[in-house]
């Protein structure tokens, strides 16, 4: 197939071409999503009004967008940090569940004085998330087991564990639903006075700054780039590959755990089984569209947060399932995947007769 064309890997993709194909891919994905939504009966003008107008230009919409963006920033950073080392963290949701459970355990168990309760909850969330990625990390480093599968499996196990607790010991006895007791006032992140936004937003932004500092400024970040580019060369050059891998991957797990902690402490104020779905894919999409750069990740997370806000409007006015958010992210990523081919490869007509 395609024998008439010769495809060669480009030695070096110029920056302008890389940017061009990237933007073209995003545009193609958005065009596909728009065409689909119009085809099922959403007027094209409404699309623009809801996404740009409602999600970013009104105060209530923007507040909702930023509330959605808070955990998205964390999972986007989590995916970006791991992917910098070409470590596929497909278990972001699992670490997020563990983080939410960790924070909830501290809150329900009333550990420590009230003044330090919240910091302790978020610390527990980050540690639980890091602990949940430790096994895939060890298996990869010691036995060479593919992390794609192990993180994925542990993600499913984490969700079942959350169900075990919420249908069992942690269930709020007053309701029949699988939710925990509501947190006390001292266990809730303070509201910022702008819609439902809460202290989690500055915390997520601080996390982004910290990650930027670690991976773009420090020596650890330099080592990380070396390991991500070429692990053998890095090892030969004396980079402590194992230590660097551990640092990046555990940081990735901690960030996903923190996302879970921020959701329960900031938005939900209790543990539930609906709070974590879809974050793995969103995190990976955000990391890819942000080109694995921590600060760009923040921008993309806010945009995806806006898509979540717009989806709420679509659901109310047009009866469209929230699956539209997943679909949009998927189509955009398909667009980028295909477009990147044209940046990474040179395509020329076969000329078998004359080439030696």
């Amino acid at each position, binding site marked *: 197939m395609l024998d008439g064309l010769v495809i060669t890997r480009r030695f070096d993709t110029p920056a302008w071409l890389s940017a061009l194909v990237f933007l073209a891919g995003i545009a193609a994905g958005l065009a596909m999503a728009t065409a689909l939504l119009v085809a099922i009966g959403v007027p094209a003008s409404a699309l623009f009004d809801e996404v740009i107008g409602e999600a970013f230009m009104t105060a209530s919409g923007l507040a909702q967008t930023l509330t959605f963006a808070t955990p998205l920033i964390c999972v986007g950073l989590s995916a970006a940090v791991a992917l910098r080392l070409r470590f596929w963290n497909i278990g972001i949701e699992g670490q997020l569940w563990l983080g939410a459970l960790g924070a909830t355990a501290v809150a329900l168990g009333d550990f420590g004085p009230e003044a330090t309760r919240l910091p302790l909850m978020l610390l527990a969330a980050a540690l639980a998330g890091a602990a949940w990625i430790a096994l895939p990390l060890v298996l990869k480093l010691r036995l060479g087991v593919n992390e794609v599968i192990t993180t994925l499996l542990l993600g499913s196990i984490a969700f*079942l564990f959350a169900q075990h607790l919420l249908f069992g010991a942690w269930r709020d006895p007053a309701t029949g639903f699988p939710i925990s007791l509501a947190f006390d006032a001292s266990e809730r992140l303070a509201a910022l006075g702008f819609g439902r936004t809460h202290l989690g937003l500055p915390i997520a932004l601080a996390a982004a700054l910290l990650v930027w500092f670690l991976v773009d400024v420090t020596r650890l970040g330099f080592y990380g780039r070396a390991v991500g580019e070429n692990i053998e060369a890095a090892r030969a050059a004396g980079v402590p590959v194992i230590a660097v891998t551990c640092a990046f991957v555990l940081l990735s797990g901690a960030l996903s755990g923190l996302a879970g902690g921020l959701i329960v402490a900031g938005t939900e104020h209790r543990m539930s089984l609906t709070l974590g779905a879809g974050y793995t894919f969103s995190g990976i999409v955000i990391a890819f569209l942000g080109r694995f750069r921590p600060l760009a990740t923040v921008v993309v997370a806010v945009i995806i947060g806006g898509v979540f806000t717009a989806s709420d409007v679509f659901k109310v006015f047009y009866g469209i399932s929230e699956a539209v958010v997943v*679909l949009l992210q998927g189509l955009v990523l398909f667009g980028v995947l295909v477009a990147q081919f044209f940046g990474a490869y040179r395509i020329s007509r076969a000329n078998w007769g004359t080439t030696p």
Partner: protein
Amino acid sequence: MSGFLVGWLAAIPAYAAPLLLAALGLILSERAGVLNLSAEGVMAIGAMTGAAVVLSGIAPTLGILAGVAAGAGLSLVFAIVVVVFRGDQTLAGLTTVAVGIGLAGVLGRDFVQKPFPGIERFGADAAPASNAFERFFLQQDPLVLVALALVVAVWWFLERTRAGLQLRAVGEDPGTADVAGVDVQLVRIAAVVAAGALCGLSGAYLSVAASHVWVEGMIAGRGWIAVALVIFARWDARRALLGALIFGAAEALGPRLQAVGAPVPTYLMMMLPYALTLAVLVLSSLVGRRGTDEPAALGSIYLRQDKS
């Protein structure tokens, strides 16, 4: 006690069949060297399409076939992205899951939670069972038999036919297969589309045969279990049957125990498939079996110029 046992055993095939069908498909794809994480999304589109077709007044059998076609169609997109456009297989697989779940949710909004007459069990309008064997058999449906036949078919195809040999060659050493005159890209696309057809069948089984209704999120992680099952089975169709029965038995046990009022940690038991797969992964790397079972070129991008 024997009543409970027969009830449990009779329930296993309906749990095992969708896992088995999807895993057989993924085995075809991965033996051709294409890492396939797309099952959850392909099953979602298959389940929705099957239900939508039957709800439009068309026969359940054709509904199943429509689910198969929808699964194959979505997988063709995945195949083109990874084979022709050399997209990263992990990322493209996750993206296909998102697109499948998203499309099913958006296109299926008019079909949610509407019961319909689907494929019936053998015992639907038969006399009550008189012995344990009949009790078991009447609980099954035609697609369970189809799934069993497909185990034999997939195994036979991979191990005993020329096309199967070519498919395995592409998954082990695409460069050599290319030199031998095998069209690597075509084989990989065909394998991925076949995988999509089987995952679509698996999804349509869930809506049209097992539950006679469609709801969003009905796949509920079964696609991921199928991905795990392939590794548990170490890419072998016969071991996939064994694994699907074990995983299906674990899944079926919880509801049966609850039905007789026994207090059971249902969700801890449902971890069993994942925990077993982790154990298989760890054990097989500990004893160094990994290299002999996993297709050598799994997940790799084939480019003719890369041949050295």
